[in-house]
């Protein structure tokens, strides 16, 4: 499959230009990789247009929910692409500047204002790059085609970034889903899963990876284990 890419240095320079308010032409600078049919971007463009219209019309109350809903909506399109395309940071760099810049500017206004925008677009760090982290988040909790859980946890920036997409849990969907469901339904717990408690829980899960292959756990076993860990981390 043929797809568009952007080099790292070019991407960083173009992002700096965009932040400075200068016009850039991503299409003119983008290269091409692969052979055969070109990646069909129509579905991506349509979904992004609908979400952008929604954002313009009614600013969301919770930015994280909005990002998660968008991640879930785009999941099917990302999954339709060959792994060789998704594995190429150049493809993610191209996407971030060609189609996602409006979203990045809105979602990460504060870091951009402080000059911390490189990681959001250069695809070196998957959990920081905006479109890629959205894909990883949806993939981590998807059940079949349904990744809606990605958009169901309010005020959850740190949860997704520090405890799911960045760590090995993201590679075990049953475990990631069990963790996210407990976080989503935290009102049912004896005490809510606030920042410090969720960190303790996540630390225990991550330490367990050292001795236990948690990817072997099915949905019911993952749920049981997560409930056990939450209970011993009051």
């Amino acid at each position, binding site marked *: 499959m043929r797809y568009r890419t952007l080099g790292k240095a070019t991407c960083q320079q173009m992002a700096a230009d965009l932040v400075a308010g200068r016009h850039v032409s991503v299409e003119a600078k983008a290269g091409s990789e692969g052979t055969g049919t070109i990646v069909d971007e129509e579905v991506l463009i349509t979904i992004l247009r609908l979400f952008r219209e929604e954002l313009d019309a009614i600013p969301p109350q919770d930015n994280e929910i909005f990002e998660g809903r968008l991640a879930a909506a785009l999941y099917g399109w990302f999954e339709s692409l060959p792994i*060789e395309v998704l*594995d190429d940071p150049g493809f993610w760099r191209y996407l971030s500047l060609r189609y996602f810049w409006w979203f990045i500017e809105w979602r990460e206004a504060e870091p951009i204002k402080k*000059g911390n925008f*490189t*990681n959001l677009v250069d695809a*070196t760090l*998957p959990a920081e790059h905006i479109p890629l982290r959205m894909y990883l988040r949806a993939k981590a909790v998807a059940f079949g085609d349904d990744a809606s859980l990605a958009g169901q946890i309010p005020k959850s920036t740190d949860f997704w970034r520090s405890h799911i997409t960045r760590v090995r849990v993201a590679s075990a969907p049953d475990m990631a889903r069990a963790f996210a469901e407990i976080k989503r339904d935290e009102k049912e717990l004896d005490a809510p899963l606030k920042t410090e408690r969720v960190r303790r829980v996540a630390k225990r899960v991550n330490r367990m990876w*050292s001795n236990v292959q948690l*990817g*072997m756990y099915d949905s019911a076993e993952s749920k049981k284990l997560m409930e056990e860990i939450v209970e011993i981390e009051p």
Partner: protein
Amino acid sequence: MSLTTRELRPFGDFEVMDEFVHAIRLKVGETLIGRDDRIVLEEDHYRRLPVVVVLPQVSEGLRETLDDMQTELRERGLELSDLVLVVNLFSSYLKISEFPYVIPLSELAAHGSEFDLIPDGDRPKALRAARSGCRVEVAVLLAEQKSPTVGMPWRKGTWLSRSIFGLSCDVEFSGFTPRPMDAEAKATLRLPETATRFVRVPPGIDPLVDESSTDLLEMWVDADLLATLSSRDKSKVSTAIQKQLFVDAFSCVMSEVRSRPDFEDKVWSDVSDTMFGKMIRAIAGRSKSDGEDDLRIRCETLIGILREDLGRFMSHVEAFADLTDSMIQSLGE
């Protein structure tokens, strides 16, 4: 006092099993690699070559070895049928994890001595993700949950013995790429106009967790100075300055690592694929006669030194960079 931190199993070793599992090899094309070793491939080869897990040729035969394992396991209250041999493929960039083989240990003898990871040409995703590479883990795990017993493995998925192999297209650590810092960049970074260089681990990066390459580190150098260094990159002064920048970058990352509360708990296998691990591996060096165990011991020793004393650790970095000689030569230029 030992400065090294070793990976200790909470329930001791299983000698017969360890001897068998640690002798498992990974065959990539025609090349056999051993436990804890990694192979660096061209992208095309990564996506094309056959990859096969090869069990050791045991002199007394696999069935007899499994019988010996059974005897060893029974002494600890376990049966061969409690365990599975699992092959896991993991690729970190896209968080891909696949299990092409999960075989009850009691049925292993019926499977032959080779496990083709690309059966019928159906290549797993992790072995197509050439840019991020793949970690192949072959482990003996507890197949089902057992009653918790002190000093015994009981939780499902607990590994009793394992061998890990790496496939990568990534070159090993080769230094840092400085970025030119002009007036605009200095203003954005909130630095003085006459700032010479600025090194930082960007916000949100954890060198102990993030597995991507060392160019995560931001090294900014005054644009004019960098241009001058580049134009005279073979001069003795330029070499000395470049080496000093290299040492500065290490100092920045190692200070960051020491400030992390979880650093104390980390062992080499936790961090070997991370940005921090790549830097440690680089200065640990490797001679042709070294095995992976030698390298691992040197890495563990360096991590121990870093825990104890940053200053002493940095002297190892300076020694690796051969900074003294460069400084003397530049003074005489």
